[in-house]
């Protein structure tokens, strides 16, 4: 190409790149700064910030809201977190459903909807995730941020060549230093992800949390699915919860937390605090590597012919048919599992009961849709509207 022609091509390329940067930059900015309104239940006692337990987080992206509900009678304390992996929407939607509808009669319930906010402000390069998803409600459409498994590199970069877990020194993949469920129990002087884990450990200690629950979703190719993973101190509750749910509502298994696998909440929270730690997994076909078109429809309906085909070849650990795994089913599973776990907790610990109401069970969520339980922020009193 002649010198002049080449120069023209270069100028055009630069101009197009700048336009692309501006347009994409605007999209990234609107995603990162979008605030999800939450109408806390009228029975919420107080809403703190995570930095109230670890001031280093004040003003950072991970200074999330901590919703506290206290009953009129004393009892045990449970901490439930959603948003560990924001690419698993069933988790944060369940946590939000609980925050908007909960009433505690005995004991105390603490909820974080977006435990790792940073990871909810980015989608994964190369995976073509949608930036937002939308849930129908009786008062309109509610919009949520889709996120990633790992914290936003804008908040934690660069990664080391290999991630050495604290305190076990187990080596993990480099990017897992930004994986909120590989950095428990956290580190006071660590990365923002590790600091966030540390802050939650402080919360667990200061609020005297007895029971800790971490909500997740998993691909159907992954063996740990449709199950409760339990620290060894929680197996009685997890096993009973699994048995009751499997005989009354839906099949759910129970697994022991592997002692040699470090950084996960079901292992480290139980090992490093007084709390019993449980982790729930619900099926999310959107996460399967063999999935077809990557879009919001797949995220919310869980319907995918490629994943179904993988099932026909016996490659999945959970069944899937043409009905898929809709978000209502996934949220309903988490809601019922939470309710049954608390019932079992109260049976096993009658001196520390946790009794709640207002939370729909599996069949209710499926019948009404998860959006039915979200309140209209424009019609709610200002002092009950919070932003995630």
């Amino acid at each position: 190409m002649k010198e002049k022609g080449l120069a023209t091509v270069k100028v055009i390329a630069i101009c197009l790149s700048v336009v692309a940067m501006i347009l994409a930059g605007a999209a990234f900015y609107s995603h990162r700064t979008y605030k999800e309104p939450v109408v806390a239940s009228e029975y919420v006692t107080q809403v703190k910030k995570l930095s109230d337990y670890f001031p280093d987080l004040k003003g950072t992206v991970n200074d999330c809201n901590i919703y506290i509900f206290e009953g009129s009678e004393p009892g045990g304390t449970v901490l439930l977190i959603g948003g560990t992996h924001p690419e698993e929407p069933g988790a944060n939607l369940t946590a939000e459903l609980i925050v908007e509808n909960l009433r505690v009669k005995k004991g105390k319930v603490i909820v974080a909807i977006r435990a790792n906010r940073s990871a909810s402000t980015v989608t994964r390069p190369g995976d073509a995730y949608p930036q937002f998803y939308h849930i129908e409600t009786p008062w309109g459409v509610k919009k949520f941020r889709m996120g990633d498994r790992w914290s936003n590199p804008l908040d934690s970069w660069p990664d080391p060549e290999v991630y050495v877990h604290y305190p076990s020194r187990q080596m993990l993949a480099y990017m897992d230093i930004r994986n909120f469920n590989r950095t428990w129990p956290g580190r006071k002087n660590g990365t923002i992800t590790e600091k966030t884990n540390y802050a939650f450990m402080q919360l667990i200690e200061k609020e005297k949390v007895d029971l800790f629950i971490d909500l997740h979703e998993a691909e159907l190719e992954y063996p740990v699915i449709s199950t409760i993973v339990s620290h060894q101190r929680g197996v009685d509750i997890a096993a009973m919860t699994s048995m009751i749910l499997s005989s009354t509502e839906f099949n759910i298994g129970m697994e022991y937390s592997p002692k040699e696998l470090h950084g996960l909440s079901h292992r480290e929270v139980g090992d490093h605090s007084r709390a019993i730690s449980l982790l729930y997994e619900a099926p999310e076909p959107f996460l399967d590597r063999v999935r077809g078109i990557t879009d919001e429809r797949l995220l919310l309906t869980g319907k995918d012919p490629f994943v179904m085909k993988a099932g026909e070849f016996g490659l999945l650990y959970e069944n899937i048919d043409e009905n898929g795994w809709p978000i209502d089913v996934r949220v309903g599973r988490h809601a019922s599992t939470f309710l049954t776990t608390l019932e079992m907790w109260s049976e096993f610990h009658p001196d520390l009961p946790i009794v709640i109401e207002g939370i729909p069970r599996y069949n209710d969520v499926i019948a009404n849709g998860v959006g039915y339980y979200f309140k209209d922020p424009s019609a709610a009193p200002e002092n009950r509207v919070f932003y995630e």
Partner: protein
Amino acid sequence: MDMYAHATLILVVIAATFTVAKLFKLSIELSMFAAAIAAFVVHTGNLPIRHIVEGAFTYYDVCLIFITATFFMSVLKESGGIVYMVRSIVKTFHKHRALCLFLLTVVLLIPGALTGSGAATVLTVGTLVGTVLTYMGISERKTAAIIFLCAAMSAAAPPINLWAMMAAAGSNMPYVGFMGPLLVLSVVGALFTMFYLGGKGKVVDLDKTLRELPEPPEGMNWFRVGLPFAVLFLLIIAGRVWPFDMPILGLPLMFVISAVVAILMSPKKLKIFAIAEETIHSLIPLVGIMIVVGVLIQSMALSGARGLISLGVVTLPLWVLFGTLWIILPVSEGLLQYAVAPLLGVPLVLLFNMKAMNPIIALSAMAVMWPVGDSLPPTAVVGRATVMELEFKGRYTEFLKACIVPSLFILLVCTLFLIFSNQLSFLVAG
């Protein structure tokens, strides 16, 4: 249109656009970019700018490592350090060919083993070792093949194997127990390559060689050459020995710090900006391909084409997988680079686990097969870096031909590891 037909259509559009773009004599990078754009347009009926830009950042960190590692090596070259090292190695080992080849293999394995990048090996020690091999009577073609394959094995070598780490992370396996199988496979592969291609050669004519090699600048010595490498090595090791006290620097900054040390140690004044400019100029094809591959993968993920390929692989019968993975894995690496680890590695490792195979041995075997494909088009990142760095004058296919026998040997050993994964479980440790 059902999803199978749609995803197939996207794959056809990608292939057709790439072919047409090549017919119009566009470069590989631009042809792939055109293919990705066509896939986006056909799938969405639009031009999703956010997806294009997001995909372009898929390998951002890897690009930074390439750039900074090359800058580090260029500084060493310009300071005369490389020439000094080459002369010293030739002087010391010219009479002991086997020992010399063994030591050179070790030198080649270290950078990639520590960084997980074959390109890092090529860019840091490739030229140096390549020059020595040439003076040992090994043809340029075979020398390029040795450097590439040893670089590939260095990327596969523990402690850092990015393919194994990514696939392990995707399958929620800890990156533990891989040391043994990865070490055996990568060392066997590298030594076979070195001795098969470089075992025979002429005795080094020391006087002639030293006469032909350029003279290093006055004042150059082992301390000046060694200190930048020592700093790099120490920074990497420090992150492992004191992981909770050392700030996270990241490989790019480590290479930059080492380059600054090399500049300070240089006995002659260096034109830093000229070196930096030349570094970027030489890496444009390499970095360009990484950026474009990211965009292409994003388009394939969005449209279901990626899922169709992944599904096609994992639904093959086990015996067919054993018989074809030695082709599928290197070819997919040539197509998609590190992205194959989550794309194919995760479903495959979950499949092998389900079939009661040892997943660590199986993943290790796959993680050594993948980098062999780094010489294959369209990306051919490490292969292209090798011929560029060594200034290989022949055709690229000649270089590829020289790689065939050792590549097949490595792939055969890895396939045997796959088949006998349970019997080889004793290798799993630390």
